[in-house]
């Protein structure tokens, strides 16, 4: 009956499914008149690798959870972990939108060395200081990943209406939930188990993006998993992490500092850094970033973005809530209109 209701009636909830590296998360929220987000449903399932189709057992569990939550037939937004994307920034000569799209696609294929038929490429224009040129953020993701995510969500009974990068979605959420993100120079970092994404904004405009691969999950869980070594050649080499001191985050902090030095002048140094992702609630991470990069670091505290019967346990809901916030923005815009 709920299924029929979801199909026939106008959807009031914003639903998001996050295929994160450490878990599959689903959340449904509603925006109250006072602007608070009321959480109707939030559940976590074991991570679903998107390089292959979702297991039948995992799919059954996902479907059962969706049905149990009464979300069958609802539209949802999907986010995919950032480490599955290739991202880079490029500068191209100024041109019209059609030419820019074609050039961005060509540039992405050339830079990422991928087969055009196997990837989905998107770009976003960024402000550029150099006259006659435009800056682009290029993102590419294998179509296989997209198809597997879409099929899994559809098989679970939901209808995906968009697929987004988790870091970008988290930025949307932070933009809504954190005041002052549109003023001055702000750094935003979204940390996932295998990749951290640094985004630099100036007066509400994205200036710079950098993806930093590394086994950040191991760093975050250093006490439990000491001795593990990262074997990925593209990853940032970690400092010895046998200790449980704040210094284990130094590799990430130093890489962040290098990125900021590359893009920021002394006068335009970020005033603060907002961190999202599971380790963002780690005080030592924030202290390390503050100490190394010389700016206040705060957690987005995504677990506190929404209210519900039970408080969310981890600070890993920024991507899902950020994606869902797009629908809530639309609804509030419609309501205002």
């Amino acid at each position: 009956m709920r299924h029929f209701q979801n199909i026939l009636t106008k959807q009031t909830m914003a639903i998001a499914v996050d295929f994160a590296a450490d878990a599959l998360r689903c959340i449904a929220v509603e925006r109250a008149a006072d602007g608070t987000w009321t959480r109707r449903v939030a559940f976590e399932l074991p991570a679903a690798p998107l390089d292959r189709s979702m297991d039948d057992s995992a799919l059954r569990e996902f479907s059962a959870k969706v049905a149990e939550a009464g979300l069958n037939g609802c539209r949802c937004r999907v986010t995919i972990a950032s480490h599955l994307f290739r991202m880079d920034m490029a500068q191209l000569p100024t041109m019209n939108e059609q030419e820019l799209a074609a050039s961005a696609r060509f540039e992405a294929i050339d830079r990422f060395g991928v087969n055009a038929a196997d990837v989905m490429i998107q770009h976003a224009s960024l402000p550029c200081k150099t006259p006659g040129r435009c800056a682009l953020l290029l993102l590419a993701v294998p179509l296989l990943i997209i198809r597997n995510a879409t099929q899994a969500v559809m098989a679970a009974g939901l209808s995906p209406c968009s697929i987004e990068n988790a870091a970008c979605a988290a930025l949307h959420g932070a933009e809504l939930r954190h005041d002052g993100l549109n003023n001055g120079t702000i750094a935003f970092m979204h940390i996932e188990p295998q990749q951290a994404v640094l985004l630099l904004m100036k007066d509400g405009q994205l200036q710079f993006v950098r993806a930093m691969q590394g086994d950040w999950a191991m760093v975050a869980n250093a006490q439990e998993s000491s001795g593990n070594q990262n074997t990925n050649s593209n990853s940032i080499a970690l400092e010895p992490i046998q200790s449980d001191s704040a210094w284990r985050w130094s590799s990430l902090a130093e890489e962040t500092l290098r990125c900021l030095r590359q893009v920021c002048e002394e006068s335009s140094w970020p005033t603060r850094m907002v961190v999202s992702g599971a380790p963002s609630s780690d005080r030592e991470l924030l202290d390390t970033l503050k100490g190394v990069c010389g700016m206040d670091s705060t957690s987005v505290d995504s677990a506190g973005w929404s209210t519900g019967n039970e408080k969310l346990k981890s600070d890993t809901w920024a991507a899902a809530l950020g994606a869902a916030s797009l629908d809530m923005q639309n609804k509030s815009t419609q309501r205002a209109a």
Partner: protein
Amino acid sequence: MILPVMDFLPSESRRAVNAVRAKRRIALLGVLLLVFTVGVSVHSWNIARKADADRAVGAMLVANAPGVDELMDGLAKEQAILSRALRVTDGLMPAISASSVVATITNMLPDHVTLTGMRIETSDTPKQMMVVLNGVAAANTDLADFEHKLAAASAFRGVTISESKVGEFMGKRVEEFTVSFHVPLCVQVCKPGTMHVAQGGVN
């Protein structure tokens, strides 16, 4: 917005999702329409059946209404006939009754004649009363006198001394006799309530 939404959902996937949603919606609407149609049909059928039953009852009442009238007319006629028949019956009286016959015979008995037995039978065909008298007479003349009196009565027909013999009665010599005759039971119609008993011509 700091960063525009970069949607990676391919257009063919979007079309597939929309198609699935549309299919679900159509299927659901189809089911709802079917349920609605079946419900309305069943309801209409029930209403039609009830209307048919009501119409049939009405038609039956209409069909039977003349019969009732006829029946009432018939009953009224029968009642009228019965009333007339009752009035006629009230006017129908036998010309003579057995008690009148006995009284008449008693009055006709001469002094020296007495009856020892009497049998009266009524027959329907012909409609008459058969009377057989047994008695004793002191002498033949007395018997003859009695026979003459009977024969003289207009109501008594066929007066016959069927037996006459000498006998003894209380130590005296007498004539034992048997006389038979019949009384026709003529029916006369008179005004009801004013009937009177014919006296067999005695008076």
